[in-house]
């Protein structure tokens, strides 16, 4: 009898669910390639970050409890976003130390990983077989970079794909101006930040912008499109999983 494969619960994230399901499908494909059984718990919704960052502790805690229950029993919880997984890592702060939910939140935190950092630990890079060929540039999303230490992992994974030529942009670690509700609460400042980012992306000469967080990618892709810049944008897992049939983010549908 074969040993059962370890179970991963996919934390889809609301932006992947709503805007770019391919990101979640690519995550499933990569996790299966790495030898995991992937399940998608139905009781998950959003990580609760909009409430948490707006000072609404009550709703944040309610959503945290729901997420903790939804992912009970999985050895790992993996999601295609440093920001949302970073939020799962904040859950212990929502409960008093003596609250039983605190311990459960700590346990969830220990099992929750952003996808590129998880793959860099668990996937044999030889098994990556992407067909993409061309120049790419990589934006380091803030939460992943500073809360979870994600910097080298996506680059290492990409370095195993012979066709990918990485051209680093200036200020790759500077915020793109998305910031969740920040981008609509302070649109002028956000616009300045994403304009700077767009200039830095354009200057690399890359044809494709990659990143690990859809919030930032929607923001940057939306700006590149508005400015008529021809650089396309995708989540890094789309390239890693060789799922390139869907048009890039915000691009015209193919006839």
């Amino acid at each position, binding site marked *: 009898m074969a040993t059962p494969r370890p179970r991963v619960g996919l934390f889809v994230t609301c932006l992947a669910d709503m805007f770019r399901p391919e990101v979640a499908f690519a995550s499933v494909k990569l996790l299966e390639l790495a030898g995991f059984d992937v399940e998608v718990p139905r009781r998950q919704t959003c990580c609760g970050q909009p*409430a948490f960052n707006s000072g609404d502790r009550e709703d944040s805690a309610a959503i945290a409890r729901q997420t903790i229950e939804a992912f009970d029993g999985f050895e790992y919880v993996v999601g295609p976003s440093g920001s949302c997984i970073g939020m799962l890592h904040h859950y212990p702060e929502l409960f008093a130390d003596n609250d039983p939910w605190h311990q459960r939140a700590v346990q969830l935190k220990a099992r929750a990983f952003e996808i590129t950092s998880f793959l860099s630990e668990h996937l044999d890079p030889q098994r990556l077989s992407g067909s993409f060929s061309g120049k790419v540039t990589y934006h380091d999303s803030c939460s992943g970079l500073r809360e979870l230490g994600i910097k080298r992992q996506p680059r290492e994974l990409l370095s195993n794909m012979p066709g990918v030529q990485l051209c680093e942009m200036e200020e790759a670690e500077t915020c793109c101006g998305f910031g969740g509700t920040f981008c609509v609460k302070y649109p002028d400042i956000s616009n300045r930040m994403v304009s700077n980012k767009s200039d830095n992306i354009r200057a690399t000469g890359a044809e494709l912008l990659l990143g690990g967080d859809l919030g930032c990618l929607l923001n940057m892709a*939306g700006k590149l499109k508005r400015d008529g810049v021809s650089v396309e944008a995708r989540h890094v897992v789309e390239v890693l999983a060789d799922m390139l049939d869907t048009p890039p983010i915000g691009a015209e549908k193919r006839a």
Partner: protein
Amino acid sequence: MEVRSPEFKQAARIALQDANLQQALGNLKAGFPGKRAAAVARLPEFDQLRDQARDLKNHILEHLDLYLEEFERNVTANGGTVHWCRSADDARRTILDICRAQGAKTVTKGKSMVSEEIGLNDYLEAHGVTPVETDLGEYILQLRGDHPSHIVAPAIHLTLNDVATAFHEHHKRPRSDDPAVLMQEAREMLRKQFVAADVGITGANFLIAETGSTIICTNEGNGDLTQTLPKTHIVVSSIEKVVPTLEDMTLFLRLLARSATGQEFTVYNTLSSGPRRPGDQDGPEQFHVVLVDNGRSDMVGTELQEMLRCIRCSACMNHCPVYGAVGGQTYGWVYPGPMGSVLTPQMVGIENAGLLPNASTFCGKCEEVCPVRIPLPKLMRHWRDREFEQHLSPAGVRYGLKFWSFFARRPALYRWFAGSGNWVLRLLAGKKGRLGKLPLAGGWTDHRDLPAPSGKTFMQQWEARNR
């Protein structure tokens, strides 16, 4: 100082369109962060020093009363006087009283953000004492009737052209755009003031408990003239600047200059330990330390206590993309940038300053560079919590959040809601794959397109596949 933080958004819009300001901010961005990074790279133990500094500050804050009292005892033993001031008003009055007792007409001032915090200049002026700023940046601002936009480089929002214009108007000399000429002009103007002043007022970077000394770390030497030439030296400082020993002070000095300007050490590090003693060649006859609380002791023992570790290096604002876009004056009060977004609500009320802790993407760069590891995003979130609790957040935000969380707390309804939104967006976008305009989403679509969903929601597709 008038609190203009409620106008943050309008001020930001104006700042973003101010070409002169944007040029000045470009200089800041091109300067400080790179210099800091180079200085940090030259000191391998920098991060260990940060840990030590954090721990030491935490220790000090746990025993703040003890160290302040030790400081007072030693100042007194040295022949100086400590004045305890609970409020900004207490501090202003105390300083005016000292000036009046000396019959002072003019006072020279070294750079001090605490003096800005307590609104000292306007107060002295209104009571017949003329303050003269001697820090070059502050001097330029005083000529212009302007306020600091940065805690270390107060005139960073100005360009060389602005300075040349201000000097030409006030000094009545031929206009020059040569920095060396302008510097020489300021020197000549200020030299007379140094000699004429009855009282010199400086701030303090640290207060040293074991010796009863204060220290200023500067690059111009103006502070030294301010504190040694007049008969009376007043140090105005906030209470959290106390450190136990001289050796502890050196730990912070190593972090301060590197974090602020990327220097290994500031050019002048001047200790003041009381009035002139018999046999001393120079120094003031009187030495006063005005200790300002102004809401700080209320922060001790709360979540905000960590903010009291701040050593005013300005690294957080130098690296902040929001500060870099709008500049310091947009924040509408004395302290700008991330540290100001935490301090200002404490000092002027969250009801007046709620826009500041919200004006952050929580990118975390400020915390990454803070020499004493203050979790600035967490503290800004603390203010958002207080704001939400007190029903001070804008109604649109509150109702929008409640509407959204109603669905987010009910997975089945949420899936239906996401599916409907997804369908509508795809319908509106058509083949184009993105939306140039969307009702109620102007904040987004005024500046960028909204990429449309690429297909049905993941949950819909996953269920269809696994049925």
